[in-house]
């Protein structure tokens, strides 16, 4: 199979289309701003496109680097964008229908469990070997990402608590990327035997994957921390007035 061929996880096309339909339906009574629509659309597109494109072919057949980048997209960026696209009324509806039970301390643990659990060698090799297991892997990562970002996007955490939440998540999640960066042996037998691409050895591929993962997380978390720091400053200046 050529690396430029398309591969599909059709379940996530269905999920993205269903989410978009639900969003459009909810938007009839509560019109979101263009920015929110764009955020939601990009988030849903990232899920569908990352898992149904040549990216999926390379991730599932050739390079761990691309697989890790794909995971970072669907676990970190896409869920945050999807949730940021929701209007207050949509969030209130979700809160009334079960999301109020999501506690920050459990959400962060669930996200970390998904993050580390799906990257365990046994699970990862199994998902790659079976192919359909990748659906489960990506489902866990998307669900973990949605759970993680919900307390923040729903406004459940005041700025100081949000900063502590983000700081703890940043530190706790960084070890996985670092393990990939510093490793001297490939973690996943699947990629050891996979046909190589772009001249990367299995170990260089893994090191670069860790770099991509850590770089993405650093960027996402620093942006989020910066946002809450600016909110903290705004709250203080409002109090002074």
């Amino acid at each position: 199979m050529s690396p430029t061929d398309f591969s599909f996880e059709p379940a996530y096309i269905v999920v993205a289309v269903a989410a978009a339909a639900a969003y459009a339906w909810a938007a009839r009574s509560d019109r979101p701003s263009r920015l929110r629509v764009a955020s939601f659309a990009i988030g849903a597109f990232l899920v569908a496109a990352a898992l149904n494109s040549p990216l999926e072919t390379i991730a599932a057949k050739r390079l761990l680097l691309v697989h890790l980048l794909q995971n970072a997209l669907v676990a970190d960026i896409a869920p945050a964008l999807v949730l940021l696209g929701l209007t207050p009324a949509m969030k209130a509806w979700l809160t009334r229908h079960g999301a109020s039970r999501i506690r920050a301390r459990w959400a962060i643990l669930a996200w970390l469990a998904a993050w580390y659990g799906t990257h365990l060698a046994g699970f990862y090799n199994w998902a790659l070997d079976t192919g359909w297991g990748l659906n489960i892997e990506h489902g866990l990562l998307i669900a973990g990402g949605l759970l993680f970002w919900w307390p923040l996007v729903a406004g459940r955490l005041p700025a100081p608590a949000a900063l502590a939440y983000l700081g703890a998540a940043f530190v706790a999640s960084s070890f996985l990327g670092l393990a990939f960066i510093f490793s001297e042996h490939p973690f996943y037998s699947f990629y050891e035997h996979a046909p190589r691409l772009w001249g990367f050895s299995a170990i260089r591929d893994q090191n670069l994957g860790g770099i991509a993962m850590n770089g993405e997380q650093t960027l996402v978390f620093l942006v989020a921390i910066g946002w809450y720091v600016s909110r903290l400053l705004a709250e203080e200046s409002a109090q002074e007035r």
Partner: protein
Amino acid sequence: MLPVALAVVAALLFAQGMVRLRQRGRADIAGWDRAALFGLGLAVTVAALVGPLDRLAETKYLSVHMLQHVLIGDLAPALMIVAVRGPLLVFLLPAQVLAPLARSMRLRAVLSTVLQPRVAFGIWAANLAIWHVPYLYDLALRHDALHYFEHVCWVVAGLIVWTLLIDPGSHRRLTVGGRIALAAAMFAAGQVLTDVLVFSLHPLYPAYPGRIDQQLAGIAMMAEQLVTLGTLAFVLLRPRMRAARLVHA
């Protein structure tokens, strides 16, 4: 031996300030915990600049060199400034020395300029960036005088930003949010350097050929910043988190 001599002078100044305050019956603000913190700060500085750590830093490992820099430029200043916060800060210098210094308009102008948050952060970030330019790094390794100057720059830049972060004299140049913002900015700037060191696939400094060593240097910097700035953020945010929880309840 210069670092040891300076550490002895600093220890003597701290001791006389502490004794004077205790003689005035203010042992509550000049307790042994302060002495322990100040002593720890001095010990960290001396241990980083003298002995095996210094030898390894200069001759073998970039990671140890990075650790040395963050110890003298971050952890040690933070510990010492925490130790002298409050009236002890004023008692650190004997009255005969402090009075003319306090009257010096030029000194006051310099201090009030460098202690402006944007200026202080600019100095700190510029110091971080400049001394990690491979050419300068290499040059400092080959010339002792420049190397000493580099270390002085680390200590001074660290003292400036940590003075703002801890606010030992209660000058309130920054609100709590402002201090968190400064800490976040320092972490973000440090993270840029960390990423360059960790993500670079080739050694950047001719004197240190090991790639893993270089990556460890980046991690050393990130870990130290997480400990120092993370502790500060936790201490500053904790009362607000409690207050928010009470309001929520």
